[in-house]
């Protein structure tokens, strides 16, 4: 497995906040603060991507279309292509 380059990040946080984090770490399935922090970054990035996609797709959203309508639509494209 490829190992990606890593950068060390140093940041300040209130002592009480860090203690509260430490109390929930293992219950949340993380072995270390580092694991937790990485997971939160990934989640934040995924959330941002999902939000952007939802905005782009909202503009395209048409009402009243069911899965069967889409199957028929694709069948019609292929039928037209076959006739060309």
């Amino acid at each position, binding site marked *: 497995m490829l190992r990606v380059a890593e950068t060390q990040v140093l940041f300040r946080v209130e002592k009480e906040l860090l203690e509260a984090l430490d109390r929930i770490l293992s219950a*949340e*399935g*993380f072995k270390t603060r580092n*694991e*937790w922090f*990485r*997971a939160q970054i*990934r989640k934040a990035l*995924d959330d941002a*991507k*999902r939000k*952007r*996609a*939802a905005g*782009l*797709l*909202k*503009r*395209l*959203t*048409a009402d009243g*279309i069911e*899965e*069967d309508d*889409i*199957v028929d*639509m*694709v*069948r*019609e*494209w*292929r039928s037209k*292509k076959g006739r060309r």
Partner: protein
Amino acid sequence: MAFEEGPSLTIIVDTNVIVAALIQAGIVRELVLDHPGAFLTPEACIGEVWENREDWNRKKVPEASVKEALDFLTEEFVTVVPRSVYRGKEEEAATLIRDPGDVPVVALALAVDNEGIWTFNTKDFSGPLLTSRCWILTTSGVKSLLMDL
């Protein structure tokens, strides 16, 4: 739940699933957006979706916006697989499915490890030869698989 390095499932998606993710609000779009990288589609399906954009673009959204949405969907959520990966399986796939338009999806399913083909057109994907080689998944089947992760 411990943190995940990435999706552990691979599901092949048909043209109709891509169209649904683009124009239909609901479960299909949610499943795709909630599981980036879990889905693969052959480049032929994306070509078909783009070629027919005037038909599915019911809202008559400007072409630049259509392109932006399709590009973002395929860059971040659904991996587009080049034909070079599945070309070698096309001949075999053509013996398993009647519609030539479905051959790339079946060929891709034969070419890579996966949990199944997600399609709305389960009737055309129901032949015994095909189902002995590939799992065919409905939307509810995909939902169950992804919920079990």
